[in-house]
């Protein structure tokens, strides 16, 4: 087997890695944003519940949660390992993304919300048109960090047997006995994925930045 075949075998797992990420990250963002809004604007009880959610999900290793959710969920529903893994990672990520969005909301809120209300906007309008657009911009840098983490954590679904990059590296490493080369190849592919994503988000951050004089 020549090296290009070797690499292309591992790289073909990228489809799964990207797939898991593209499900986990947006799912986490959607859930995280809704929970963050409830946390910040939903009153004391909601804040407590959200705090509990965040503490629990951030306090357990993702791999453990992955197994729990996989075996708990697949007992009732017929879910493929790919979907179970992706959704589990999405839930883990939602706790982190909730904290990111919450932080951004809190740092915009307060005065900006008051100013919007003073003009006559309802609370909902003020959040929608004044707080959120600014919070999104503040959230991009920490979110880019979380995106990188989710890409890397997607490797965990290998434990469920999903043939993504790491799983393939392991298989071909074992069959060819060239472990180091296999894992190095995997590392390079992961690195390129993370690097491209952070560059993209950097670009987005700059594009969305609000003009101001130095």
């Amino acid at each position, binding site marked *: 087997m020549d090296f290009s075949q070797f690499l292309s075998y591992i790289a073909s797992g990228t489809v799964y890695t990207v797939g898991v990420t593209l499900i986990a990250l947006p799912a986490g963002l959607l859930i995280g944003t809704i929970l963050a809004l409830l946390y910040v604007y939903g009153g004391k009880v909601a804040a407590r519940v959200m705090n509990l959610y965040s503490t629990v999900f951030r306090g357990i290793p993702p791999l453990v949660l992955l197994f729990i959710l996989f075996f708990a969920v697949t007992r009732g529903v017929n879910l493929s390992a790919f979907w179970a893994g992706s959704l589990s990672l999405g839930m883990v990520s939602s706790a982190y993304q909730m904290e990111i969005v919450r932080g951004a909301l809190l740092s915009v809120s307060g005065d900006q919300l008051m100013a*919007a209300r003073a*003009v006559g906007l309802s609370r909902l309008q003020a959040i929608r048109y004044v707080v959120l657009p600014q919070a999104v911009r503040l959230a991009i840098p920490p979110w880019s960090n979380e995106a990188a983490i989710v890409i890397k954590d997607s490797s965990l679904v290998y434990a469920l047997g999903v043939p993504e990059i790491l799983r393939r590296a392991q298989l071909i490493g074992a069959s060819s006995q060239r472990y180091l080369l296999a894992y190095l190849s995997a590392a390079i592919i992961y690195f390129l994925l993370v690097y491209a994503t952070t560059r993209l988000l950097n670009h987005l951050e700059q594009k969305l930045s*609000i003009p101001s004089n130095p």
Partner: protein
Amino acid sequence: MPKPILTIKNLTKIYGQNVIFQNLNLTVNEGDTVVIIGPSGTGKSTLLRCINLLTRPNEGQIWLDDLEITAKGTDEDQVRQHIGMVFQNFLLFNHLTALGNVKLGLTKVKKMSEEEATKKAMHELSRVGLADRANHYPGQLSGGQQQRVGIARALAMDPRVMLFDEPTSALDPELIGEVLEVMRKLALDGMTMVVVTHEMGFAREVADRIVFMEKGHIVEEGSPDEMFNHPKFDRTREFLWKITELYGKKEKEAE
């Protein structure tokens, strides 16, 4: 016979154990400029925030024209449309241009069309002399310009009364003049205004009535002439002397 726009009766605000003010009474007539002065921590800003319901008073009533806005079930958003507020720290919406700041209330609250709102917003920006800065973001404007946008944003809603919460306190001395000039023009145009400020020159020249507040009470109120030249209480005289001395110096330095 002067027509009251704003009537405040027995207003009390308490934060925890802290009595901010108690049994406050104040009437503002149509077209009047009322300047509220007093040491910091006296409850002046809290009073303004009670008037547009950003904070709820513990007791007492406020009427805007004939409507009791402190009554249960009042539509706060509806009330705030009619009360313009200008903040010490401008509080422009940072992600919107000057035009966007003025337009937001028009399109979202007054439900004006995009075109109508732009026209109205541009009119208000010209009123404060900033039509040429319409497409600048707050971060690209000086403090004085930001505050003038803040005034235009409030004016655009065609409020019955404008509240100013120390509008020039956060400004460099050389930028204060342009903001006071806009406010002076507004007063001359007949806008009803309640202004919390330490600018004694403005108070003396523009105010119809000056209210001196201290420790949650109105110590004395009267025309600028009464307050500056024949105050009834020593405390009023003392405060006005101090503040005129202090700010008079600053104004001179700025010249």
